[in-house]
């Protein structure tokens, strides 16, 4: 389970690449806030059962904001451009990309997944698999598994019939985990579905895997490097 720290680190790495020399302290704060925001749905989960990784991890939310930014930016008297200039419009797009890729994406591509079309289509999706080449077998991939058998009993993801697109004869498994009725992603705020026992263990992760360290390192390096250049604008890049 990627922690919020990891989400933000990955977002800062992306933002440094997207903004280039326009990356400064203010954009770092905006991007970090936008990326940390989806994880606030842990609090929604206190009210709406199992809403973590669903309520704010839906693509509809950044999709709606993107539509608003787009409509505003093409107007003559754009509020965003009038208030923050062309830089502000660009930063809004970058923050949205980081929301989707680092905020929602990182959860979708790791264990338990996220619920990208909630609440219209309530289904957690975990995209995981391997692509490789095995001597003898040739190329193989396990990200999308198509079963051309009517027997849906082996799927083990009851009630996910919406996942198949072609005539009901074949099932397509891209990592459907089930709806919010079946899947509860635990968090420190809401560790169990339903009311918690007193003294229940609440875990707040920072790093859970070795690769989390690598990504956090990369994000920290990119942020430090970019801020050093933007703070000392005009300074030589090779002075150390």
């Amino acid at each position, binding site marked *: 389970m*990627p922690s919020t720290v990891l989400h933000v680190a990955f977002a800062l*790495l*992306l933002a*440094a*690449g*997207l903004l*280039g*020399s326009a990356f400064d302290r203010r954009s770092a704060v905006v991007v970090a806030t936008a990326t940390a925001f989806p994880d606030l749905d842990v609090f929604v989960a206190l009210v709406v059962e199992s809403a973590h990784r669903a309520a704010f991890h839906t693509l509809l939310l950044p999709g709606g904001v993107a539509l608003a930014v787009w409509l505003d930016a093409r107007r003559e008297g754009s509020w965003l451009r009038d208030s923050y200039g062309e830089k502000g419009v660009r930063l809004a797009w970058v923050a949205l990309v980081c929301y989707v*890729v680092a905020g929602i*994406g*990182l959860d*979708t*591509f*790791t264990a338990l997944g996220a619920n990208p079309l909630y609440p219209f289509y309530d289904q957690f999706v*975990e*995209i*995981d*698999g*391997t*692509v*490789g*080449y*095995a*001597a*003898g077998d040739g190329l193989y991939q396990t*990200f999308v598994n198509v079963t051309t058998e009517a027997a849906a009993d082996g799927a083990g993801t009851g009630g996910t019939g919406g996942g198949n697109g072609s005539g009901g004869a074949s099932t397509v498994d891209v*990592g459907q985990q089930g709806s919010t009725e079946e899947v509860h992603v635990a968090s*420190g705020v809401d560790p169990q579905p339903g009311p918690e026992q007193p003294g*229940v*263990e*609440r*875990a*707040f*992760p*920072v*790093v*859970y*895997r*070795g*690769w*989390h*360290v*690598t*990504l956090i*390192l*990369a994000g920290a*390096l*990119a942020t430090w*490097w*970019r801020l050093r*250049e933007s703070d000392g604008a005009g300074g*030589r*890049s*090779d002075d150390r």
Partner: protein
Amino acid sequence: MPPTLVAAGLAALLAAALLDERQFTGRALAVVVAAGVAPDLDALLDVAVEGLHNAALHNVWVPLLLGGAVWLDSRRGDSWLRGRYGADGVHLAWVALAAYCVAGIALDFFHIESAAVLWPVHDRFLGVTGRLVYNTADGVVFTLVEPSLAGGELLPKAGSGTVAGGEHVPTFLNPDEPGRDLVFVGRGWQLLVVLSGAVLAGWRLREDGARTDDFAGDG
């Protein structure tokens, strides 16, 4: 080890993040990605001398030596690197070194399959994995680095075998078991890193190219 393609993706992300618009060219991107995947070339040496994979080029000495050389050279008045490639060339060298360390070495070091990062001075494969969690039952749990100060191995949990002791990280070219398997992407998160690296680098090449065309006058 995480597949080489993932190191390439992470190197591309780092290139985009650390290079300015003016510096981010196809050639610079190629240099940084090459530096990011360069450590995995010890898989070739491993065919000749078994055990060198994740050891011969996955150690801190290679980037330290190269970094020292770049630093010494860039301090000189008639720096070879600056004379030949300009100040951007020096900057590019540092970015390539960062990609070598983070995408090339750290990705394998912070992974169960481990890298012999101090080889040959200290011969031990180290794979740092673990957790940093706060939970209400145990407080702060930190299991990434658990040094043993009582003597013996410093990092008993992270350490596995030694190069001399016959420890070998299998590769496609030199598998431990029959049946060669070349993995391009091993997990979901690796696919995300590869995709974001490719898309971001491609987008930057296009954007920066367009921007350069606008100022084509100043060459």
